[in-house]
């Protein structure tokens, strides 16, 4: 069982905004689903299985980068070629 406090903690870890009003409902659903997941407890820890496809590489050859206007086309928060993001400090 996870508590509302646990769910709030997970929301913090996921950096996702959960409204206070949503928390109880979320926690209830969460527990139903986690209860169902408990069936995995019966699974023996096993190998990761066969890996058929390995060592997929590309050669170190320069390919064209995006044209500058396309790089910044999808945001209006830009300045002197930079993207503008909220401050981190």
């Amino acid at each position: 069982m996870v508590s509302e406090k646990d769910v709030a903690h997970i929301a913090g870890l996921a950096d996702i905004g959960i409204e206070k009003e949503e928390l109880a409902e979320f926690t209830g659903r969460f527990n139903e689903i986690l209860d169902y997941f408990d069936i995995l407890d019966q699974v023996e820890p096993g190998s990761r299985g066969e890996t058929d496809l390995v060592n997929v590489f590309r050669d170190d050859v320069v390919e064209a980068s995006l044209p500058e206007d396309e790089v910044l086309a999808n945001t209006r928060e830009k300045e002197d070629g930079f993207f503008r993001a909220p401050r981190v400090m």
Partner: protein
Amino acid sequence: MTETAGTTGQENRVMDFSDDEVIIGLEIHCQLDTLTKLFCGCSTDYRDDGPNTHVCPICLGLPGSLPRVNRKAIEYALRVAKALNCTIIEESEFARKNYFYPDLNKGFQITQYDRPLAVRGYLDIEGDDGEKRVRITRVHVEEDPGRLVHKGGADRAKYTLVDYNRAGIPLIEIVTEPDIRSPKEARKFLNKLRATLEYLGVFDSEKEGSLRVDANISIQPKGWFTREGKGKADRGRAEVKNISSYKGVEKALTFEVTRQKNALRRGQRLGTETRHFVETRGITTSSRSKEMEQDYRYFPEPDLRPLQVCSWAEEIVLPELPDARRARFLTQYGCSPIHARTLTGDLRVAEFYEHIATIDPVLAATWVADTLLGELNYRDMGVSRVSPESFRELIVLVKEGSVTDKGGVEVLRSLLDQIKESGSCETPGECVGRLGLRVLERTGETGADDDPVAKAAREVIAEQPQAVADFHAGKKEAFNFLVGQVMKKTRGRAKPADVNQVLSGILGKEG
């Protein structure tokens, strides 16, 4: 340990640090010198270009884009792993490290976690007490995040500017065991590692920001790290993050040693702490970030397939590495052990030396290891700024006696100043001529009127009657003084043997 502070016994115990040792482990990130990024075909040659000019859907993290591993990056990493005597893991894989920061284009970093490329290696270095082995825990490959810029400084900027040109540059992360025992040793380790990476042709230390170091440092009772010492209390440690220069590492760690010793002396408990190195002030500061409690939720990168590269690694033939080259310099060129170490400590220096060693290996070694490196260091220049042909010409002039050692140094200084100023310089011959440093060739018989050395000697004798008198009175030092004056008058261009001969000739006649 009792917790009751303040008793005399306790204080004595706390104050006694004679038996402590500094324990340092390093985590080094180096940019691999590939043509393209780790997961896309964007060029890595971004340093002279504007922000976000070397980006594509993949390194911008546009939805729907998929990473593709650069074969060269893996090959370079394997070279490093082999050179560091690591065991290559039979099947390794990429993993996602999840955290949210604007320099991350995808909201996670592709790195390696529980199945890294290689583990358990070592690098032998010249430690504080002679040759020593520093164990390598692991070597793995990961992508560099983007670069954040704060206009007007981190404290004042209202927002963050992001440039993803650096995002996706291949990095190799090398983690050492806590085997390093002093800041100086850490520096030596880094120098040796840098040399090794450059010999391998996978790294260019001259590129700005190509190396970053996180250092774990603590001060523990001696033997704490040995099996017997395991029971003793851990005094806590600091992880100093993101030191971006070689000198910075030694500075930051030296600061930490002092800081931690002082704290322990005051009886403080240090705990585990993340600190940042403030390069401009040479100090470390505690970072308030929650980094210690971060939960990165690693899991295997589902868009990439595992690596099985053991047999590939076996096929890779390594070039000559610093230790082998040092040994060869000893035998092939007869270098002194110290010169051999200095000359091979940097790939560019070693190659520079080999370029000119043919003239006279020992003379060349002295000139490169002692003179050139010192003058370069003084000017904060790299050896790659100097043309080996030009330097070779200078050594030839010195060797054939056209310029004295002292004159040669003067020429070298002038040439380096010119390079530093304008990027180019005149030839050593021109410089010797311009500065009038060509050795004064004696003409005719000793004392002949047109012999410049004799002329200088006569002038000195005329100007220094007291010294001449002293000489005649039997004072040996007076002769040395007069020789010095002649040398000074000829601005070092006269050969000391000539001056000796001429001076004693004239003084003898007078006597």
